[in-house]
């Protein structure tokens, strides 16, 4: 019996678990994985190759790599082999000259430019001009510079060939630095907290979430729910629909409407002018007005969510309880305070936690209105990570860093959820299942 019931329980929650796995665990896991890489638009997200560039050598030399090693890597060498001959033929070098090279020097190698040049000058059908001679030399070049080695092994062999007695240290540095793909790293997090902008963005985020949540999502939502509850039915319905508009309007349209509304010569600016107040673009003109707009834009959307949820919960309170409280002598306010609000504890918890998380992670309204400005005064964490990872003017997208930012957001979200559940004594709310198995 025991095992059957728990089997049924598992069966019942399995769809939820599946959805949770697909839509929460997997993205969270991937975010976690990405955040420990240095993936960016220059590394790509698949593997890379090993390329030693002149720039890399310059940088390594500055970081104190042995000058001998550097020189050896920079040096070109030449060898007359089948590959080189084929390449030279393909590059339209005089075939007679090539035949002579093959006949005289096949299998030989030259360490420097000048050695090979001297050797070639001995041949009768060599080109007259030194420029053509150099062009003819090129296909025989054997250099590691700017060559893409697909695997680490190939790169190691080539480097070892160039620099005879290279130390293990230098080899390791060279290999890791010349890798063009992404690598595992924990540097993202260090980088984040070294940035001076980070703390200001954190402060912005806290301010934004806390203010929007308390003023609009919960307080205004509750206020609207309670007022519509006491309004006559028809009036209440109209009221509800009006407050739903921000939520059912497509977000881009909604943002554009706000833009028009607060434009330099839009409604707000004109009205302010009429009233003798400073008239400017209220969305971008000042920090205070920008914040006010950002919070209102998001708040009006959130308020309707709270309103709907609270209204439903309100209507599920048996009317006799409200009658009883009136007979007991409670005023309207006492009725709301002692009978209604305590029974809305669960929806309030739900709205608070759900909206904290959705405010923490939503950036689209801000992106479409103030875009984090003026300056970065209204930039929040989600917007910044979106920009870092996916939308950047300079075109260099840092997926790894962005993922690290997102991961921190997920961690904070989880922590907050746990705190909320404790705060609202979740255990008491869900105690026993209504039906005993």
């Amino acid at each position: 019996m025991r095992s059957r019931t728990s089997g049924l329980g598992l069966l019942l929650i399995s769809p939820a678990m599946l959805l949770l796995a697909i839509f929460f665990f997997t993205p969270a896991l991937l975010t976690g994985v990405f955040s420990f890489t240095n993936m960016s638009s220059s590394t790509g997200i698949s593997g890379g190759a090993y390329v030693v560039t002149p720039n890399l050598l310059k940088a390594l030399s500055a970081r104190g790599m042995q000058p001998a090693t550097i020189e050896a890597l920079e040096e070109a060498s030449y060898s007359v082999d089948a590959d080189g001959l084929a390449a030279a033929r393909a590059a339209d070098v005089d075939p007679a000259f090539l035949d002579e090279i093959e006949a005289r020097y096949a299998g030989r190698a030259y360490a420097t430019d000048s050695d090979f040049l001297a050797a070639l000058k001995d041949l009768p059908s060599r080109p007259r001009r030194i420029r053509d001679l150099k062009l003819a030399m090129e296909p025989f070049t054997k250099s590691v510079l700017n060559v893409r080695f697909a695997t680490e092994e190939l790169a190691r062999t080539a480097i070892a060939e160039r620099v005879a007695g290279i130390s293990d240290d230098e080899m390791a540095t060279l290999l890791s630095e010349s890798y063009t793909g992404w690598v595992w790293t924990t540097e993202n997090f260090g980088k984040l907290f070294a940035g001076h902008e980070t703390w200001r963005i954190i402060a912005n985020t806290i301010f934004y979430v806390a203010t929007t949540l308390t003023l609009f999502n919960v307080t205004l939502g509750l206020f609207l729910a309670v007022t519509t509850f006491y309004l006559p039915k028809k009036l209440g319905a109209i009221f509800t629909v009006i407050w739903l508009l921000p939520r059912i309007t497509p977000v881009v349209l909604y943002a554009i409407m706000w833009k028009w509304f607060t434009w330099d010569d839009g409604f707000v600016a004109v009205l302010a002018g009429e009233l003798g107040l400073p008239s400017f673009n209220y969305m971008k003109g000042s920090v205070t007005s920008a914040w006010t707009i950002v919070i209102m834009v998001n708040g009006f959307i959130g308020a309707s969510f709270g309103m709907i949820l609270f209204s439903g919960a309100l209507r599920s309170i048996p009317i006799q309880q409200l009658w009883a409280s009136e007979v007991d002598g409670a005023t309207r306010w006492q009725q709301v305070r002692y009978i209604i609000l305590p029974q809305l504890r669960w929806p309030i918890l739900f709205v608070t936690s759900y909206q904290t998380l959705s405010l923490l992670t939503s950036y689209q309204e801000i992106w479409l209105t103030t875009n984090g400005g003026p300056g970065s005064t209204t930039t929040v964490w989600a917007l910044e990570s979106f920009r870092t990872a996916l939308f950047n003017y300079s075109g260099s997208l840092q997926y790894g860093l962005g993922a690290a930012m997102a991961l921190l957001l997920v961690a904070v979200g989880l922590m907050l959820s746990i705190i909320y559940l404790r705060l609202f004594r979740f255990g008491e709310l869900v105690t026993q299942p209504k039906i005993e198995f």
Partner: protein
Amino acid sequence: MQITLKNFTKSFDGNVVIDRMNLEIRDGEMLALLGPSGCGKSTTLLAISGIHRVNGGQILFGDRDVSNLPSQKRNVGVVFQNYALYPHMNAYENIAFPLQVRGQSKTEIEKAVGQIAALTHIEPYMSRRPGQLSGGQQQRVALARALVRRPDVLLLDEPLANLDAKLRLEMRSEIRRIQQETGITAILVTHDQVEAMSMSDRIAIMDQGEIMQISTPDDMYRNPVNRFIAGFMGNPPIVMVDGRVEGTAFETTSGFRLPLPGRLGGLKHGRPISIGIRPEHFGSTGAHTVAGTISFVEPQGRESHFDVRVGEGVVLRSIQPSRRDVAVGQPVEWPIDIESTLVFDEQGKTL
């Protein structure tokens, strides 16, 4: 506090539920409002408590017209049909609520709640939520909450519906005792006639939004104004036999005859009437006797119920102290107390 309903009218969305009802409840009296389901008992109660506004007429508490006063200002205590306890508060907090919203001090509240809890025997459950209480315990908490602030009027909407038989008996006398001790004017809504008869000073019988009769339990039992009420009062119920007037007697189509009570002289010959005989008026005393066969015996311990077939399709019921000398199928000839029988006309009105 005397309560007077004058031409009280109540309708929901144009649908008249109670039409010009007049009712007077005397100061300190317990009135039972008895009637079938849907007849408007709860509606009347809710109007008196101020939750429903009247659509016409007046409600007076004493000389004061409270028709337009909100319930907060009426000082009535109500026990609702489904208790309406506050689910998020424990029993103590539920009972304390009316005092708390009045801003009474903690010590005052504690004392008052303690007293009322003792009166209603719910001290052991004070820290439990309504969801953790049995139906009967919830009922008593609701009663305590209604009583705790000493209301002028106590309104009880089927307060005993959910109790087991023993607890129901106990609570019946308990409520009655509390009501008499506090001298509070009370209205008890019920559709159990035994409850109505045992608990109240007077009974008002309602049907389809109308008061049909209002009287003391005894008087209502003896002198019901119509057949409906006669059938409503008494358990086991009265037996009705339909027939016609035949001179000074009553006769059914199948030929069963009974003399009519002496008070009813000169009824028109052939008039359709029905006669109601209560079980206690058949089988013990009386000048007239009827013969029949016992068709059913139901022993009840101290007393027995007998069904006696006295004619084609006519079965009379008798209630007598337990006796073993008769059994099913046995012919008997028992007396009937003709003067105590009730006679109704074709419309069901008592003659």
